[in-house]
């Protein structure tokens, strides 16, 4: 036993040493395994993990640029940014969100809509970023919250600049408004530029010039800890503010025009003929855009929608009206140019017109007729029979071709939203849309601006400006200049010249304009009532468009009451005749006669503009 043990001991030591060496080798293998793994992580995949580590700690925070301001042509502020308080909640720091919301609701007014919007934002928010619950807190609300703030961890105020329209409803249809961004809009814009913004231009110039007004987003690179708390700013790139817009709108003229329109529904567009600058763009009734910035309450919105006048409808650009007699100067010009009528040729008006082989009488507005009538008298007294005959002689194709050159039936391309095309009918159009042939009778009523023809007030004003300029056309626009807030430079928006309407004789222009002058300044002119005390010479044309029984904007037909059946009153004018400074088109819905309702408004507007800018002695 003892001997075997001794032998075993010797064997045992040898065996142990072998096993210890194997164990040492195993250690080397295990350590190498670890080193390989660490080599893989630290050397091979280092770049990947380095990025992940930076993603962990570095966060980009966006800073909203200040939105550009909007001024009128004389530097009056039409849209500005005002500091307002909003209430932000950081959900990660709140223990019981629902309870916090209820408790806050006891202190300040929180609508169901606010909570809905908040919960929506909650779903797509970044950790430790505040979500806005209420905006535009009143001073009392701020005070109440400040006192109770200790009760609400994670609830914070944020000061931000919010759009404010100091002129309220004035020029709202040109400027439009901003509102909270919705999902669709985020799809439409470069959403990376809007991560710090809550608002976006919804309609009007605010929308059309969104990119310029918005500016470029700034960002801050910050280091955050795991809770998302900012520890330090690593890098900062300040936002570049949006550009200021200087409009061609004359705020004083705009207000005058809105006042002159009174309680009527309708539209007025005033254009500077030699530049195409829109001086006033009125659609009545107006509405206050300011509630839309913070989100208008459902009740207020419904009230706005339900009022029969539909204030949000932009009549100046989207309203498509039968232009009526104010088309007569253009038809007349077409007839002179084409030789269908001579400059002094007289036609006999007996109060109605008969097409060959037709029983139907096309009546003049004046039952007794105008007797011998040349182009000048036909315009001054707005003789329908003269233009029935002229239209008959010209034919629809010629009429279409000539009016097309003035931009009827096409968008003018004005720099704001919601412009519509109007309608300039033609044989092709009728074939396409109604699938019937064109009837001669339809040519006659087109000759007096009725029938299928529709035009927007902007188109009427723009065409009148072209008349004033004797064929020189300018694209109407609202933006006069842009001021870059970074460089301080002001860039003028160039005038866009459209192809000039060249006639075979410039005397045709004079003939038509003299007719329009007679409308205002002759003893039988339809607008003679406004002409007697003018210090300058004005060319105008009255129009009275039938509402009843005529194809027109369907939306109107439904709500017609007795007043709604009355004719639209129209008036287009420019002045002074020799050196035109302003061209105006006006429509007063259901106003009755153009001469007695629309023309006085034009007079007020043109008087205001000329006297203010060119003195009382302008000729």
């Amino acid at each position: 036993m003892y001997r075997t043990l001794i032998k075993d001991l010797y064997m045992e030591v040898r065996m142990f040493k072998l096993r210890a060496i194997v164990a040492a080798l195993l250690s080397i293998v295990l350590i190498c395994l670890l080193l390989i793994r660490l080599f893989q992580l630290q050397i091979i995949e280092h770049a990947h993990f380095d990025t992940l580590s930076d993603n962990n700690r570095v966060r980009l925070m966006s800073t909203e640029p200040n939105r550009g301001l909007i001024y009128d042509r004389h530097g009056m502020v039409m849209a500005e940014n005002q500091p307002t308080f909003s209430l932000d909640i950081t959900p990660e720091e709140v223990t019981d969100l629902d309870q916090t919301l209820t408790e806050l609701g006891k202190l300040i007014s929180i609508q169901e809509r606010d909570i809905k919007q908040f919960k929506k934002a909650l779903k797509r928010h970044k950790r430790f970023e505040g979500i806005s619950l209420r905006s535009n807190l009143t001073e009392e609300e701020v005070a109440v919250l400040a006192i109770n703030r200790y009760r609400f961890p994670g609830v914070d105020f944020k000061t931000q600049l919010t759009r404010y329209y100091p002129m309220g409803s004035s020029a709202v249809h040109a400027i439009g408004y901003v509102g909270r961004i919705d999902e669709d809009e985020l799809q439409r814009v470069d959403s990376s530029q809007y991560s710090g913004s809550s608002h976006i231009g919804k309609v009007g110039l605010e929308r059309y010039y969104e990119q310029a007004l918005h500016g470029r987003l700034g960002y801050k690179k910050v280091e955050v800890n795991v809770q998302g708390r900012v520890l330090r700013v690593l890098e900062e790139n300040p936002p570049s503010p949006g550009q200021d817009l200087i409009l061609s709108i004359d705020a004083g003229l705009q207000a005058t025009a809105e006042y002159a329109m009174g309680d009527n529904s309708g539209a007025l567009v005033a254009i500077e003929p030699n530049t195409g600058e829109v001086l006033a763009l009125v659609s009545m009734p107006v509405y206050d855009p300011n509630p839309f910035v913070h989100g208008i309450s459902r009740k207020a919105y419904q009230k706005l929608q339900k009022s029969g006048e539909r204030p949000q409808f932009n009549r100046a650009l989207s309203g498509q009206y039968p232009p009526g007699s104010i088309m007569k100067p253009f038809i007349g010009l077409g007839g002179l140019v084409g030789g269908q009528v001579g400059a002094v040729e007289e036609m006999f008006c007996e109060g109605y017109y008969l097409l060959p082989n037709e029983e139907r009488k096309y009546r003049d507005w004046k039952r007794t007729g105008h007797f011998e009538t040349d182009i000048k008298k036909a315009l001054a007294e707005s003789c329908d029979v003269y233009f029935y005959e002229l239209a008959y002689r010209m034919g629809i194709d010629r009429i279409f071709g000539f009016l097309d050159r003035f931009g009827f039936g096409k968008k003018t391309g004005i720099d704001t939203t919601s412009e519509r095309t109007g309608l300039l009918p033609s044989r092709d159009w009728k074939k396409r849309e109604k699938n019937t042939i064109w009837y001669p009778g339809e040519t006659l009523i087109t000759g007096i601006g009725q029938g299928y023809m529709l035009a927007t007030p902007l188109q009427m004003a723009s065409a009148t400006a072209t008349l004033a300029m004797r064929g020189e056309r300018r694209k109407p626009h609202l933006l006069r200049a842009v001021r870059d807030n970074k460089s301080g430079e002001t860039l003028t928006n160039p005038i866009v010249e459209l192809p000039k309407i060249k006639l075979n004789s410039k005397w045709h222009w004079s003939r038509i304009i003299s007719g329009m002058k007679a409308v205002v300044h002759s003893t039988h002119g339809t607008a003679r009532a406004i002409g007697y005390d003018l210090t300058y010479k004005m060319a105008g044309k009255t129009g009275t468009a039938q509402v009843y029984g005529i194809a027109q904007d369907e939306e109107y037909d439904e709500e017609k009451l007795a007043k709604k059946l009355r004719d639209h009153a129209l008036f287009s004018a420019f002045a002074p005749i020799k050196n035109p400074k302003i061209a105006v088109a006006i429509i007063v819905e259901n106003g009755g006669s153009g001469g007695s309702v629309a023309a006085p408004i034009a007079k007020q507007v043109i008087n205001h503009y000329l006297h203010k800018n060119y003195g009382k002695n302008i000729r």
Partner: protein
Amino acid sequence: MARTYANDFEPQESGGLKILQAIHLDPPLVLALMLLTACGLGILYSAGNQNIDLIIRQSTRLILAFGVMVMMAQIPPQNFKLWAPWIFLFGIILLALVLVLGDIGKGAQRWLDFGFVRFQPSEMMKLAGPMMIAWFFADKPLPPGFKNLIIAIILVIIPTMLIARQPDLGTSLLIAASGFFVIYFAGIKWKLLAGFGVLMAALTPVLWHFMHDYQRRRVLTFLNPENDPLGAGYHIIQSKIAIGSGGLYGKGWLNGTQSHLDFLPERSTDFIFAVFSEEFGFLGVMLLLALYFFIVIRGLMIASKAQDSFGRLLAGSLSLTFLVYLFVNVGMVSGLLPVVGVPLPLVSYGGTSMVTIMAGFGMLMSINSHRRLLRK
């Protein structure tokens, strides 16, 4: 037989080293341990966000642990051999007691509270386990016969199962490993060893069956941490980011962003290696692992020079177990192994395991220095 003790086995050296040898310490091992714990304090200073209190507490524990090591080194190995069965028995009783009390309480129960001191019997078992197996083999002819092998395996399984029931999978695996290492050094046949390995692999599904839900989740998370990046997978993802972003040179001491911005959880304790890797990079990691490797090899050298079977087996097992600690912890932190709660030995914040490990090194030194002078 007269027994005299001396430490003239090693070549005599001068100065401080002489003093170390006089108190039965092994200078290279002591130096390596001190270097390692110093590194540990340095990295803990960073991981704990430069909290001096943390360093003071850890230093206190270190001093205590070194004290225990010196104490253990004074005890001749024969005494360990004498006490081994009793300590083991005592440990088993305490483990059973923990389980019983744990059933009364709720959840995982690892501690015994004696009022004045809280005690973790599984820690004691880390030493008592291998001591017991070594004692069992000490006076038997080696390599062991089949019967003895079976008895040894049962001796390994008893504490392993008791601790696994607590449940503390990490510690139970470590204890199983330390017992297994004794059997390995005792001379289990290579063929049997291979067969044993195959058996363990085959038993893995069975092990799965016995696992708790949270343990299964850990394994699943280990297999695919990106499955649950904010939940269970978060630890391991953040840890890998910390290690990987360290690169070759590291971000520098106190400059680890993953750790200092709180992205890395458990960074003072189980995940401290990730902090080290982030701040010192692959170069630092190589040096640290070299230090650990040196300690293990030194332990194995001591084991192979030990005079009797008990010393050899115990020293060998303790050294390899130390390596397993390291491997499991670094493997877990770097995503090579599932997350089991094993600290980085001598570096992670926390006292209990540190004292146990240093006590083990004390035994190692005792085995090294208490030698019988054999007559030629």
